[in-house]
Every structure is written in structure tokens, then in C-alpha cells.
């Protein structure tokens, strides 16, 4: 801080911090850890997050209420104001938006950053420097609680999965038995033994003949399956909606034994894994798995929508306005696109024997 001495009061000129900057996108990642969205090399921690957002690049054409309405789609807003003192680009304005919840701010940032808005491109970033001490304390407490709760839920869920596996008779295993010894992680982990992974077919699997490193395809699959809420190319989940739902609805009668069994579960799983930290599972195993999975292809887009609805909607709060659509960077063009799309949908749905076409439309919607 080379700035002159200033007292902490709300009237001082807001300062520009490094974390407001947009970092340079990293272009040198190898393919297996290169996500779908261009990202910079940056680590997100709770310290960087905040329910206070700064929105830069708002065209100075009197669209404050529109901006706030747009932000409010992602959760209740407690306060907002223009940051007139903050250095802005010509003909643009900067706003401070304080959400009630961190999760809302996270959703808003994710959906609005780098999106066009009345002809300008928004830059949205967290501004934790506007927090009070109490804000910071609550933020950390919430985070800690969330992590502990989620870990407990995961343990409980695993326990249930284990019980379910024990009740079910073992289904026919399609994997060749000869590999039993090497297929350590899969075999030892009961639930994954018969995981033909109905959802594990990503559209990246279109090149089975490429000599990929053993884990490469798996990552893509995972990335695709988990759809939007999964890690981005930096492995960052900072803009993922926190989701504690999966276990809340499940019966909790197994709670009493969960700790012990979880340990057991970990032990059986942990030993082979630790041993294989340096050593990869032979590629043939993966090829077999992949082949199995290829045999039941499914539309990745369907999975995508399924995941969004199934796993992550409960906690988002207000429903998201729309799935990410083709953005023509212009309101009227977008309206036209929308109309064309509607017409196409109508046309496509009249003759019921044209499933291919229906799919095409869907595909376009999600670009």
C-alpha cells in the first residue's frame, strides 16, 4: 500500500486492488487439464470470495435498475450503489452490489462476468474489502460449517451406498475377471464395481483409437458429466453452487454406525490407492472400461440438463433465468434468435418422426 495515509471511512475513494484485475488467461496447459473455459492460473480461497460484488463496464446510459434486476435473479440483494469514485472506463459505470448470501454473489458472478449488457461487457469481481469484521467472521464460519456438514453427508452417503451394495446380490460383472488383481481401486470399492456408468459417456470419447495417457479420457468424461457445477479448468469450484442437498433427503438411520464403517471403507480403499500413487493402472483396464461405456452412448446434453436439475437446483435459491444461450451481444439480435428458435421448435415438433432435428435444435440452444 503505497497510498497516502487514509482513515477508514466510507467516504474515501475506493482503491484498486490486484484482485479486481482480470488475469491473463493461461494457454500453456496440456490437454488433459485444459478445461472448456479459458481461465487464468489462480487459486481461489474463501478470503477472495465475498457477498460484495463490484460490477464494472456497465454502459453509462441509465441502466442501473436493469442491472440490479438482472443481479437479483441470482438472489436477494441487500444493498447497491454506484461507485462513482472508482476509476471507470469512458462511458461506463461501476456498481457495488451486496447480496444477502455468498452463494447468490457467486452465482451472479459466474453468470454475469464477461457477459454483454446493453452493449457493454461486464466485468464482475468479488470485493471483500467492503466487508466488515463481522461479515468476514460470518463468511468464515459459514464456510467451515458447510465443509464439515458436507463431509459428514458424504460419509453418510457412502455408508448408505455400501449397505445398498450388500443387500443387492452382485450383478453380473461385465469386466473381465483376469484383471482382478490390477484393477485395485475399482474392485475394492464396492459400489464402483458395477458402475457401467450410465452417465459416463462424454462426447469427448469420440476418439477411442488415440493413444491417450491412461487417465486422460476420464477427466473429460467427468468434466462433461458433472456438467456446469463441476470444476473448471483450474479445478476451481469458486463459482460452483454449494450443494448440500444430496443427503438431506436420504434416511439417516445408519448414522450410528457410519463412523466405524466409513473407516473400514477408507482402509480397504486407501491401501491400494496409496500403493498406486506412483504406478498407473494398466491401460488395458481403462480401455476395457471405455469400451464398455461406449456401448451405451447417450446424449451428453441430456445428461447435462439432468445433472443441473437433479443435483444442483435445490440450493440455488431463485431459479436461474435460463440456460446459457447463444449470445449475439445485442438485444435485438437475441430476440430474433429467440424467435427463430421458437419457430424451429414448432416446426420440428409437428412431425413426430424427426428426432434428429429436435436434437439439433437443442444442441444449438446450449452452445
Amino acid at each position, binding site marked *: *500500500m*503505497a*497510498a497516502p495515509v487514509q482513515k477508514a471511512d466510507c467516504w474515501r475513494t475506493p482503491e*484498486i*486492488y*490486484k*484482485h479486481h484485475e482480470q488475469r491473463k488467461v493461461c494457454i*500453456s*496447459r496440456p490437454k488433459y*487439464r485444459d478445461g472448456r473455459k479459458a481461465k487464468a*492460473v*489462480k*487459486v*481461489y*480461497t*474463501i*478470503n*477472495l470470495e465475498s457477498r460484495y460484488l463490484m460490477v464494472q463496464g456497465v454502459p453509462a446510459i441509465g441502466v442501473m435498475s436493469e442491472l440490479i434486476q438482472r443481479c437479483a435473479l441470482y438472489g436477494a440483494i441487500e444493498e447497491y450503489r454506484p461507485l462513482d469514485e472508482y476509476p471507470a472506463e469512458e462511458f461506463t459505470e461501476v456498481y457495488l452490489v451486496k447480496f444477502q448470501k455468498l452463494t447468490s454473489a457467486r452465482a451472479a458472478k459466474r453468470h454475469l462476468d464477461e457477459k454483454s449488457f446493453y452493449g457493454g461487457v461486464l466485468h464482475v469481481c468479488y470485493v*471483500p*474489502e*467492503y*466487508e466488515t*469484521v463481522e461479515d*468476514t467472521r460470518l463468511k468464515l464460519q459459514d464456510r*467451515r460449517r458447510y465443509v*464439515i456438514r*458436507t*463431509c459428514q453427508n*458424504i460419509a453418510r*452417503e457412502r455408508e448408505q*451406498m455400501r449397505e*445398498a451394495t450388500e443387500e443387492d446380490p452382485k450383478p453380473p460383472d461385465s469386466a473381465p475377471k483376469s484383471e482382478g488383481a490390477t484393477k485395485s*481401486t475399482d474392485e475394492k470399492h464396492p*459400489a*464402483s464395481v*458395477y*458402475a457401467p*456408468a*450410465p*452417465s*459416463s459417456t462424454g462426447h469427448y470419447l469420440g476418439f477411442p483409437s488415440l493413444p491417450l*495417457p491412461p*487417465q486422460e479420457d*476420464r*477427466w473429460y468424461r*467427468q468434466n462433461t*458429466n458433472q456438467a456446469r457445477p463441476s*470444476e473448471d479448468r*483450474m*479445478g476451481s*469450484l469458486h463459482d*460452483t453452487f454449494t450443494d448440500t442437498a444430496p443427503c438431506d433427503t436420504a434416511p439417516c438411520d445408519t448414522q450410528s454406525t457410519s463412523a466405524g464403517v466409513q473407516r473400514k471403507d*477408507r482402509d480397504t*480403499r*486407501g491401501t491400494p*490407492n496409496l500403493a*498406486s*500413487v*506412483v504406478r498407473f*493402472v494398466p491401460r488395458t483396464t481403462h480401455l476395457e472400461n471405455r469400451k464398455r461405456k461406449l456401448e451405451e452412448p447417450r446424449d451428453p446434453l441430456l445428461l447435462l440438463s439432468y445433472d443441473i436439475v437433479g443435483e444442483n437446483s435445490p440450493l440455488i435459491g431463485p431459479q436461474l433465468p435460463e440456460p446459457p444461450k447463444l449470445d449475439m451481444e445485442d438485444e435485438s439480435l437475441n430476440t430474433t434468435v429467440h424467435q427463430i428458435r421458437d419457430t424451429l421448435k414448432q416446426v420440428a415438433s409437428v412431425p413426430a418422426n424427426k428426432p434428429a432435428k429436435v436434437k439439433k435444435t437443442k444442441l444449438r440452444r446450449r452452445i
Partner: protein
Amino acid sequence: MSRKRSSDRSDRFDYLQTLVTEFQDTDNDEAKEQVLANLANFSYDPKNMEDLRQLQVTDLFLDMLTEDNENFVEFGMGGLCNLSMDRECRDLILESGGIPLVTACLSSRREEIVLSAITTLMNLTTAASRPQVTEVAVVQCMLRFSLSESPRLRNLAGVFLQDCCTEPQVARAEQTMPDGPQTVLGIPLPVDSVP
């Protein structure tokens, strides 16, 4: 649903393992930074914590704290900040003697490193570790941070002083605080803002 999740999970474990292996095998600093940032960001998601524990990523992060490359330190510290939210990870870090390593990061010039270190120290506070976490030098350092120009640093140090320390502790630290900046920890105050 549960089947799907379990297969996702082993996929994820394999992926994380690939990252750790790449990190160990590569000599390319840029790749190392990227992988480290990946791992630190994966540490944000509680779903990954068990896998990361098994892969001993806590120790990997701790190793980074003594690197010369400040990016390594920043990403390692960020990863620890994320992981230490989980109790089991916290215990692992404590077992590995993480407190002095994290405390040393309070003297970093990068604000992001200092912030992660403070949050990590708060996470590492248990009944047993409290005396070590709140030793006089650390409390004095927090007292200085609480006067910082940077609101984030000021706030976080404030939370530390209020939540992790007792009032007599703070009073004692204030009394024994030497005038001027010649204390062991926290020199110089971190710089972050761009003029």
C-alpha cells in the same frame, strides 16, 4: 444416482492422482504452478478432501511453503487454507508440524499469502494447538495487521484477535510489543494494491 456418483468419484481420484504424479515428475516450473493451482482449487470442494488426504496433498502443500518461488508459496498456502476447513485435514496438517511453517508465511510480502495464512491458522486452532497458534509473536503480528491499510488484512486479523485469542493474551502482547517494527514476524507489511 449413487452408482453414477461412485464412478465419478473414482474418476476424480484417478485424475487427482495424475495431477500429483505430474507435479512430482515435471521439472517445468510453469507446469508445476498450474498443477499446484489445480490441486489448491480442488481443495476448495469438500467432495475432494478425502481423496486429497489419501494422496497426501496436505504434505505437498506444506512443502511449498518453504519454496523460493512466491507463486508456489501462494498456491500452497491457498490450498492449505482450503483444506484446513476440514477437520481431518486440519489434524493432518497439525501432525505434520504445519503451524511454524504457516506462521512463517505471515511475513510474506504478498497479501494473498498472508491472508491465507491467517485463515489457515484460525482453522488450525484446537484446544491442543491454541498455545502454539497464539504465541506472543503471532498475536503481536496480528495486532500490527489490525492497523493495516488493507481492509481485508485488517478485518481478518481482527477476527483472529477476537476469536482465537483471549483478552489477557492480547493485552500481554500489546504490553510487550516493542516500539517500532523490529519484531520477528510480519515485516514488512504486505503490499497488494496497485497504485
